[in-house]
């Protein structure tokens, strides 16, 4: 094993790890200006990670080293989580400054969580994948309860922690069973051994292990029936962290699930395809129906993120190593979803102002006072619904057309029907923004912070540009291989 090459490949995240520790110490030792410095260091390290991942992507290295395997798909995943984390850091500064909560630990935990995600995405060994999930989650448990004087903040952290720890136990149990029956945790070796194991007398124990691993992942991506923690955790967490949970955490979990699913879950046989079919259908339908009832924007977006996990799961029942278009559909969808969700949460954070409530009435009259913010939010919501010419439309288009080609027509019909339902709750904030008078004092007259505007602008431009020229983004995804 060439250690210099290994260090070179993991350099983006070593920088982020170093920045995390620097922020922890520098922020604690500095008496004044710690918040701004912490934010600047975090932002710079994440931008460096994004740039270096891009460089790796351009260099197109494909190599397996120890427990990690690198390839264009890995680097693409790294870029997605780097972008999502950059959005979070940008949103956080203003949000924390208003609440006088600018602790260095906050940024340090975000960076540590991102490092966990990076190893989760690059992991080709079940132990590293488990470790990555844990590093990612434990940091987010603490971040979810960062508003510790708020009752619902504590509720969010506790619910997320208890269910998340429970899910990790399932995942670990599953890994133990897989290791017990196959004597390996390496995914490539597992894929080779699969036929022997499935015809052997240990097959049922192995399948039990696979089921447990699937449950563990379903918790992390908040698929029904393992979604119950999501609305409360999303609602109680600080809004930038909600955005982090909905974009970076979910994208990283999906990248890992793609890597685990094709050798393990899907190759096992038609019984598993049915399980994934049910998981996907239940997630879309329940996510969308529950979102209809929400007056709270954060809860609405939480259920919407559950529904979107259901759409992405449409590709999984027929996933295999022979279906690159399905993998590309999921990745494209994840990228689209990251931009539109990050943008939406930026607007929610702005509409919240000093308060913590995220009721839909907060955006009333937004169109009059901040027409650009209202227009951007409209685009984000239309994109989430899947209207052309936005990125969300093409995300759904590539995903569903790939699924139809591979024969899951029934599931795609369900997905289309449930996304028609979703139009109702996505269009409601638009109506409120443009046609409702703002209540006195609900929406401040203050102009949005620069960093918040930056997030909205980047997301807005990305959604419109790639919505009009989707082939550019698709080319990047397709060249990333499997």
């Amino acid at each position, binding site marked *: 094993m060439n250690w210099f090459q290994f260090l070179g490949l993991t350099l983006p995240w070593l920088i982020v790890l170093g920045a995390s*520790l620097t922020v*922890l*110490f520098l922020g*604690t*030792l500095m008496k004044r200006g710690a918040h701004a410095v912490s934010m600047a260091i975090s932002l710079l390290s994440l931008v460096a990670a994004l740039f270096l991942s891009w460089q790796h992507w351009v260099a197109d290295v494909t190599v397996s080293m120890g427990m990690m395997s690198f390839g264009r798909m890995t680097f693409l995943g790294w870029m997605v989580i780097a972008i999502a984390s950059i959005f979070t850091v940008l949103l956080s500064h203003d949000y924390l400054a208003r609440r006088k909560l600018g602790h260095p630990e906050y940024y340090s935990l975000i960076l540590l969580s991102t490092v966990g995600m990076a190893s989760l995405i690059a992991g080709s060994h079940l132990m590293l994948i488990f470790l990555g999930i844990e590093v990612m989650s434990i940091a987010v448990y603490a971040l979810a309860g960062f508003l510790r004087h708020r009752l619902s903040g504590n509720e969010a952290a506790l619910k997320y922690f208890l269910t998340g720890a429970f899910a990790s136990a399932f995942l670990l149990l599953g890994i133990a069973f897989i290791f017990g029956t196959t004597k390996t945790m390496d995914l490539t070796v597992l894929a080779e051994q699969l036929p022997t194991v499935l015809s052997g007398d240990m097959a049922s124990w192995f399948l039990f292990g696979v089921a447990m691993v699937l449950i563990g992942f379903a918790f992390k991506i908040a698929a029904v029936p393992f979604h119950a923690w999501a609305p409360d955790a999303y609602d109680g967490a600080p809004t930038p962290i909600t955005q982090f949970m909905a974009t970076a955490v979910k994208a990283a979990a999906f990248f890992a699930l793609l890597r685990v699913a094709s050798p393990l879950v899907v190759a096992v046989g038609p019984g598993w395809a049915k399980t994934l079919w049910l998981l996907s259908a239940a997630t879309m339908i329940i996510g969308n129906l529950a979102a209809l009832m929400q007056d709270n924007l954060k809860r609405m977006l939480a259920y919407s993120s559950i529904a979107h996990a259901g759409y992405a799961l449409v590709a999984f029942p027929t996933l295999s190593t022979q279906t690159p278009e399905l993998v590309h559909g999921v990745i494209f969808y994840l990228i689209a979803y990251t931009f539109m969700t990050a943008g939406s949460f930026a607007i929610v954070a702005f509409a919240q102002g000093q308060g913590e409530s995220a009721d839909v009435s907060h955006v009333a009259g937004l169109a009059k006072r901040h027409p650009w913010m209202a227009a951007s939010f409209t685009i984000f919501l239309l994109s989430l619904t899947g209207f052309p010419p936005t990125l969300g439309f093409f995300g759904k288009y590539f995903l569903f057309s790939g699924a139809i080609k591979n024969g899951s027509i029934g599931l795609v019909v369900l997905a289309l029907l449930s996304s028609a339902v979703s139009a109702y709750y996505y269009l409601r904030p638009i109506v409120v923004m443009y046609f409702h008078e703002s209540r006195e004092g609900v929406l401040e007259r203050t102009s949005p912070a620069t960093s918040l505007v930056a997030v909205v602008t980047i997301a807005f431009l990305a959604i419109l540009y790639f919505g009009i020229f989707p082939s550019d983004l698709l080319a990047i995804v397709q060249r990333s291989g499997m």
Partner: protein
Amino acid sequence: MNLNGISLLFLFALAVIVGLVMVVGTSFLGKWRGNKARFIPYECGLDPVGSPRSRMPLKFFLVAVIFIIFDIEVVFLYPWAVVFRDFVADGKGVLMLVEMAVFLGILALGFGYLWVRGALEWEE
């Protein structure tokens, strides 16, 4: 593997000897100051009988968390020390040493953070 059995026996004997030396040694060396608290079970300063809703300083929990840092360190150091010789024979001694140094370094940073943050200052 007879040697393992003997070493285990040796460890057991050592534990008994250390325990005996401590108990017997203190009764010879120390001064006996008898008071009521000395006769309650578990001399850790907590009254074993009392209201279950009594309050306890959060600092105890902080100490427990700090303890975990060192606990985890030792938990990993023992198996590492056991297999280290095999790795040296395999020519991977330096690698293992560096990896343990990285692990200890990260733990030391965590400890340093606690120190800087003032978690070790008992009096406010």
